[in-house]
């Protein structure tokens, strides 16, 4: 983990998203797929927190972030320009496991910005597979060509039907699962909203496969110190709090104890 003053190389629109490229000598070369950086939005004097963003691309001396301007911080981030200094803390989190037995087929499921960490993963997994990307609308469907250029099969679903199948990405996934060759052993990697992750996880558990789910939780410190980003996990010693920023953001589906509707008291054994 480093605290690095990076320099903005470029910022470009990509559909409804933006790609921010930063010169980074210390963080970039250390990044593994699924890890994130905690970014301080410059000149936002009244914002005390950094913003967590997954690493989308990483090279020896630069990295790129793919983000959607959805609020105060990401909105202000659109105004940074080439040459601006941006402080990053990273790489943070555990990231996705990249070792994969040769008989497994990687199945990536991305909701919204979830393509960012999965794209980095797609480059590093030992075998190619299939990507399911689900978003609100065609303008949110990202990186199709990039995945295809890497040899991945890319399928899209949009909620408004403007591109690919209309509906949720999990429906698309289910269709494909039903028709897949019976000897195909999927290994899931997913990043997106909780509902989607949970659905992917359930399918994996039912089928007896593994699903690596990257959670999105509001964060304070990003390094495990503040205990803001906790998630209940099933561990040998009982139900425990994991810190999404440090123990995650990636957990295997079986570990995650999802909240049940109406549940208020969260029991954990320590």
């Amino acid at each position, binding site marked *: *983990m*480093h*605290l690095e003053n990076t320099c903005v190389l470029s910022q470009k629109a990509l559909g409804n998203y933006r790609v921010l490229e930063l010169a980074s000598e210390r963080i970039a070369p250390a990044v593994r797929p699924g890890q994130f950086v905690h970014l*301080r939005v410059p000149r936002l004097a*009244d*914002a*005390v*927190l*950094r913003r967590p963003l997954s690493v989308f691309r990483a090279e020896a001396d630069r990295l790129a972030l793919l983000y959607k301007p959805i609020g105060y911080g990401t909105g202000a981030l659109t105004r940074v320009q080439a040459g601006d200094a941006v*402080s990053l*803390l990273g790489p943070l989190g555990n990231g996705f496991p990249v070792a994969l037995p040769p008989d497994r087929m990687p199945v990536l499921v991305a909701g919204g910005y979830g393509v960012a960490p999965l794209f980095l993963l797609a480059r590093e997994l030992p075998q190619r597979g299939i990507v399911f990307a689900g978003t609100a609308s065609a303008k949110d469907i990202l990186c199709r060509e990039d995945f295809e250029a890497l040899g991945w099969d890319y399928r899209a679903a949009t909620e408004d039907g403007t591109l690919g199948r209309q509906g949720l990405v999990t429906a698309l996934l289910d269709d494909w699962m039903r028709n897949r060759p019976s000897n195909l052993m999927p290994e899931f990697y997913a990043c997106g909203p909780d509902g989607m992750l949970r659905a992917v996880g359930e399918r994996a558990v039912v089928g007896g496969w593994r699903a690596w789910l990257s959670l999105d*939780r*509001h*964060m*304070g*410190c*990003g*390094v*495990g*110190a*503040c*205990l*803001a*980003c*906790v*998630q209940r996990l099933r561990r040998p010693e009982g139900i425990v*709090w994991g810190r999404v920023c*440090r123990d995650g953001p990636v957990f295997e589906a079986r570990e995650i104890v999802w*909240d049940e509707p109406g549940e*208020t*008291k*969260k*029991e*954990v*054994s*320590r």
Partner: protein
Amino acid sequence: MKPDLAIEIAGIRMRNPVMVASGTFGYAEEYADVIDLSRLGAIVVKGISLKPWSGNPIPRLVEVPGGLVNAIGLQNPGVEGFIHQHMPFLRTLDTPVLVNIWGRTAQEYAETAARLNDVEGVRGLEINISCPNIKEGGLAFGTNPSAAADVIRAVRARTRLPIIPKLSPNVSDIRVFARVAAEHGADAISLINSYPAMVIDVERRRPALANVTGGLSGPAIHPIAVKLVYEAAQATRLPIIGMGGISTARDALEFIIAGASAVAVGTATFGDPMTALNVIEGIETYLSDHGFSSASELVGALEQ
């Protein structure tokens, strides 16, 4: 000549007056990669209770202009868990470690304190009687002078370590609590804890925090904290550790000039982990620039 930054509070010698505040620095190891821990004045670890405590449901934290509101709810592995999981690392540091403790009864505080008595590497206890985030205890002790007195007395009776009650800002007259601390055997006082606050998500018409209310920290509370430190300093000769909204050396200097012997950096570490180190440098520069030969000369140096 370089000014002398070293200070001594409650018998604990620190290389400079800048500490990191409880709950914002975990158990220090979390920041070890990016900060040279040996440069800090002291480290105060996350609040510890007698038994493990699971804290509040999420969301536990929400950002507001100039600060954040948290309702972590004092999650911690309990004093045994703390000693086994975290003291081995903390003991390797040559920076004084203070343990922040809390309980649901005066008895629990006292037992936790007693357990830490002979733990190597623990240099003092900060007694949190002011956490706005748990119903059991916490704030209830901090806003009632006799309950505060009970806790302090009970802890004093069971420990040889220096004890530093951490006062609540949520009182009409902080001087009362400063005096209570002095009378019942405290070696110093810390102030302030975060201020009771609430954020509503207007889209969903629900509290933004699962716990409904939480504690406001960060620059927003700094002028409130300076006032309370100033008042407390008029009321007691106990050394004061000032905190609340420090993000620059100037913020820290205000506390010192108001009467604090040391300061702690909390929320600002999240935005910039280097804050405490920058504050140390800034204080040093200020002292040289203004002809002070030591940090302690500046304590309470307010002219009127």
